[in-house]
């Protein structure tokens, strides 16, 4: 068959966000791929430079709707380190609780969307129904289902009353039992397995070479997790372990994410039970001394990096946000080459793209016919 250019997006039901793929398919097999992600570029970094620390937080929170807490924590953690401010332990614990709750609801959201991509709507409905329990907990703690704006440079805005802690603890056992049900379902549901197993394979050194981050990398055996490598917030004191998998395809990523769900739940329970008392905020000078920090944070999709440069004023001289999805696009482009057209949504969904975080493009063109399965050259032609 002749080569067909199939544009997918920006308006496409599979993609919850505007991305445009120009997939050049030979019959049903993908030969070449061009992504264009400039649809959700808003120019946040330029605007953040014109706002002081207090006004910058709501803007930076809205880089992405699902991992909003990640961005504000990374930003405020960086500024606090430049200022040399010591955040009270209770604030660290509350930030960790919100961070892990956000990871849980993000992973449940992803599990549902991945199932929806392959047409398994029942799991889509179930996972999102259970996600509502986490949304209720977050709403009780912070007042909003999404965009919690809990963080502030120097600590946390709202305190957790014993009632809130109690209400959160009550919901955890139900969620635990549901997560166990999903583990069995992912193993047993045959039709979903045929769509997940062996799709979008990424070997360990390919994952390293193409710079995959987060669950996408951990599913291929790459053992990177910022919470353990560069511990921040209260992760050093909490007993938890990194979930990795070896079979590197969409199925492996599903297992890693469900494993992380269980880990996060245990972490939230531990933090809620061992919540230290004390102040939740420390007064912070208005301006930050000149300095530079590479603030790394383990967002639900992977390693989020804020490079912050301050120049002694109350504003940031430069903030460079590199989001996990940006790092994963290269590996997605690699995984897609040679796959049938029907797998595009599944593989793209496998890295759980958060396009509002990124607006980058990668061009991958193997030059030779990928259908023949010849090993791809490392060079990336335009």
């Amino acid at each position: 068959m002749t080569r067909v250019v199939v544009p997918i997006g920006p308006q496409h039901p599979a993609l919850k966000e505007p991305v445009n793929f120009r997939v050049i398919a030979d019959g049903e097999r993908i030969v070449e791929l061009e992504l264009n992600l400039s649809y959700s570029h808003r120019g946040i970094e330029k605007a953040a430079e014109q706002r002081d620390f207090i006004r910058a937080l709501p803007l930076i929170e809205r880089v992405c709707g699902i991992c909003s807490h990640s961005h504000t924590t990374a930003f405020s953690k960086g500024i606090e380190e430049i200022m040399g401010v010591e955040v009270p332990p209770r604030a660290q614990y509350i930030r960790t609780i919100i961070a892990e709750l956000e990871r849980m609801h993000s992973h449940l959201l992803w599990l549902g969307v991945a199932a929806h991509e392959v047409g398994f709507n029942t799991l889509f409905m179930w996972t999102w129904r259970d996600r509502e329990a986490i949304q209720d907990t977050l709403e009780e703690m912070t007042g909003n289902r999404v965009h919690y704006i809990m963080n502030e440079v120097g600590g946390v805005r709202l305190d957790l009353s014993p009632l809130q802690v109690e209400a959160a603890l009550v919901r955890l056992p139900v969620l635990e039992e549901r997560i166990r049900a999903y583990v069995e379902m992912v193993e047993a549901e045959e039709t979903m397995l045929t769509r997940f197993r062996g799709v979008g394979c990424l070997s360990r050194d390919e994952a390293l070479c193409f710079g995959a981050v987060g669950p996408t990398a951990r599913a291929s055996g790459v053992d990177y997790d910022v919470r353990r490598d560069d511990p921040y917030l209260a992760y050093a004191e909490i007993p938890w372990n990194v979930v990795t998998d070896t079979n590197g395809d969409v199925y492996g990523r599903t297992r890693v994410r469900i494993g992380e769900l269980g880990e996060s739940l245990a972490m939230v329970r531990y933090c809620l039970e061992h919540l230290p008392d004390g102040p939740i905020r420390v007064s912070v000078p208005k301006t930050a001394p000149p300095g530079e920090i590479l603030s790394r944070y383990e967002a639900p999709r992977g390693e989020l990096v804020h490079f912050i440069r301050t120049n002694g004023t109350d504003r940031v001289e430069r903030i460079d946000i590199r989001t996990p999805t940006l790092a994963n696009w290269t590996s997605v482009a690699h995984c897609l080459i040679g796959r049938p057209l029907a797998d595009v949504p599944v593989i793209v969904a496998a890295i759980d793209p958060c396009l509002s975080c990124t607006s980058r493009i990668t061009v991958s063109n193997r030059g030779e016919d990928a259908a023949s399965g010849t090993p791809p050259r490392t060079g990336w032609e335009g």
Partner: protein
Amino acid sequence: MADPLLLAAYILIFPGFLFLFAYSMVFEFLDRRIVARMQNRVGPPFFQPFADIVKTLGKEVIDPEGVDRPIFDAAPIVALAAVMTAFLYVPVIGASPLAFQGDLVLVLYLLTLPTLALMLLGWLSRNIYAAVGGVRAVTMLFIYEVPFFLALVMPTLMAGTWSVSEIMAWQKEHLWLAVLQPIAFVIALIGLQAKLERTPFDIPEAETEIVAGPWTELTGRRLALMHLANQSAAVAGSALIAAVFLGGPALPWASGSAVLDAIAGFLLFLAKTLAILLILATVRGATARIRLDQLNVIGWKYITTAALAQVAIVLVMNAWEVGA
């Protein structure tokens, strides 16, 4: 039923077109309700399918530029007409008056017309998604059509007749054909699920991959008619399988008046078709969509060989007069 007036009433109103549309709306409502209950949701109200169709009929009709309007209008009508005529030969309240030797083959071929109409629509609407969807629809047709025909032809081997009504009558004296030929029954259900393009076989209309497949460019009355054709095909298909495999509306004992027979037969018909709908809806709720090449492998390797095995078994049974 020599009386033309009664025949016209039979065709137009009761077990004919009006009933088919009403029952296909009930079918769609129950289908969506069952899947919703499986997904822990409440599901739509009972009048929802009726409201959907009336609303889509009232929408503006947009022709993508450069499309061949007459054929684009005609395809949904042809699909609906094919399914309506197919439904006439399927017994609803007892043997269909229009039955003749070979109407099983006619019904089978009429039921494939909607897929061809879908292919035509996909190809004509000059939209890349629709074209890919149309091609997928026909590719799938070749995969599931062979076992589906085999599964529905095997009862003729055993019953010895080519008419749906006579197969139904034959089952009065013997066991149901679903019991005698279980593999054929299962393959027929799989084939029907694939013919109606329901998950796990809704590859042409894969919502998350190619927007809405051949349906993408349909608006207004074309969408309404095509949707009605698809739902009516669900009713006609399950009625056919109910008649051929589950004994259809025939009563084992002949009670007194014909009217009582008709009513009891009709209730049996409703029960059996709703049972088949329950199976189809549960399968739709519980499975994910498989890829076309996977369907190809499963279709040819497993389903077709199972159908051929069933044919061998039927021939052996015929030889030993087991069934008769």
